[in-house]
């Protein structure tokens, strides 16, 4: 097989990574943008979403679609509710102080991780995809008889992977619609712009913070539910999404949702392509190098605003 089909295959894999990463990173970016809280436990909310998805899917039984559908609805809601509880019991007491909340979320990371290990165990467990039809992808080659459509062996994807990409696009459009078109989005953006003035204009800032923290964690959990039929649920699976989300949020611009989505596409695609052609480790090294370059030459990120 030529390089071209491999590139298509790598791009498709990268698009799946980008889709899931965009959802996870948008959650992290929302929390930082509105609350100015660097949530180190974000990856654990992702992991919790995957573990809950396994538990819900296993409990429901029957056709895989039933279990998966229930997980898709319930896991983000449960994780979001847990995050809201963590916000009200921990972050609120620290008055959302940027430094102290970093330490607090590190503590939260270990609590969630170790409780999961105790309750769920160290095994990696799969969730069956609701549908998983293999789809061959055609390729065009120029031969003696001109351009011909061929079906190279191994060049294909699954209907589920395409559905993950589609679902992520729909969810991201939903997040944009909430932020741009609803009252909740308006008060979140007002709080992001000026917390004190938001209070002076009747916005219950602490409630907005709790909702934002819940929404951010819920998005991470939703991303995990989507990916868990492809990657298995494991109590240590939160580290990679956390690292990549930080990379994406820094490149995109802290608190900028369009920047976060664009950077997720960039990092996700490059991760997929470099992983296929070289190695996943090299992909992470290059992404980290990109962050270093952004921090040196454009510290506010691609779409971020320079601090006044």
């Amino acid at each position, binding site marked *: 097989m030529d390089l071209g089909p491999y590139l298509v295959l790598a791009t498709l894999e990268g698009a799946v990574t980008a889709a899931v990463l965009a959802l996870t990173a948008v959650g992290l970016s929302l929390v930082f943008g509105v609350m100015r809280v660097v949530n180190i436990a974000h990856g654990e909310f992702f992991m919790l979403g995957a573990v809950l998805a396994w538990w819900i899917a296993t409990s429901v039984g029957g056709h895989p679609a039933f279990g998966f559908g229930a997980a898709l609805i319930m896991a983000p809601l449960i994780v979001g509710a847990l995050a809201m509880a963590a916000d009200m019991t921990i972050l609120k007491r620290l008055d959302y102080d940027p430094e102290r909340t970093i330490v607090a979320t590190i503590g939260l990371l270990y609590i969630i991780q170790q409780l999961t290990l105790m309750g769920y165990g160290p095994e990696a467990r799969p969730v069956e995809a609701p549908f998983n039809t293999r789809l061959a992808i055609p390729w065009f080659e120029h031969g003696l008889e001109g351009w011909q459509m061929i079906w190279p062996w191994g060049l294909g994807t699954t209907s589920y992977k395409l559905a993950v990409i589609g679902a992520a696009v729909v969810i991201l459009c939903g997040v944009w619609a909430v932020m741009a078109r609803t009252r909740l989005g308006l008060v979140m953006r007002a709080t992001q712009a000026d917390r004190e*003035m938001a209070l002076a*204009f009747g916005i219950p*800032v602490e409630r907005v913070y709790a909702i934002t923290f819940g929404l951010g964690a819920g998005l991470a959990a939703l991303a995990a539910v989507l990916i868990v039929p492809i990657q298995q649920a494991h109590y240590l699976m939160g580290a990679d999404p956390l690292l990549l989300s930080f990379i994406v949020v820094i490149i995109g611009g802290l608190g900028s949702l369009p920047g976060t989505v664009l950077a997720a596409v960039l990092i996700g695609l490059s991760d997929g392509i470099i992983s296929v052609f070289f190695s996943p480790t090299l992909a992470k090294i290059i992404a980290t190098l990109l962050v270093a370059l952004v921090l040196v030459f454009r510290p506010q990120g691609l779409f971020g605003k320079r601090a006044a």
Partner: protein
Amino acid sequence: MLRLDKIGAGYGHAQVLHEVSLQVSPGEILCLLGRNGAGKTTLMRAVMGLVPLMSGAVQLDNVTLSDLPPHDVPRAGVGYVPQGRRLFSGLSVAQNLEIGLMAGGQGMAMREEVLDLFPRLRDRMGQAAQTLSGGEQQMLAMARALCLAPRVLLLDEPTEGLQPSMIDAIREVITAMCARGVAVLLVEQRLHAVLSVADRVAFLEDGRNGPVIPAETLRADRALADRYLGV
């Protein structure tokens, strides 16, 4: 009536206000004057609940504002125009006004009423707040506060850095609000900017009550005012 009863307030352990008492009646404009660092802005922030009180109480009619969480103070009928405008900069003019309407539970009729006072904002509704000129930003800050149909309006240096025509426009709105029965507490550094509109002038000296003098008396005796301001 807005009543400040022996309030003490500050930041951390640093107390800025010491037993300050004031009252502003409906339809009255009370101007608060004092040197830099006298505690004028802190007093405004203390009324809004943005600075915690160390002692005393703030009351609006029968409601003790200082017992309410900060976000309930505007809902009780207090509009605030802070120093430096502090608009929601990423939001449009219309969205800034909507935040004010939401705080006061008001509808579009109130928005129209406010826009009649600031017709220039009508053409800028979709524009981002930070792209407005300084004068227009001040108009928007005032309009945002008026959208919640306040019974008390706190204005912290509303004419700072504005050209004379803008200052006249802002002054007209303040007078109009006063005529509608709104109690206005106005902080200014420049005495001449307020004497024409104020009913009474209260001096704040190092965070403590100074004299409260009818504006009429100060208009007649500028030397007296200069003595209090130390100019």
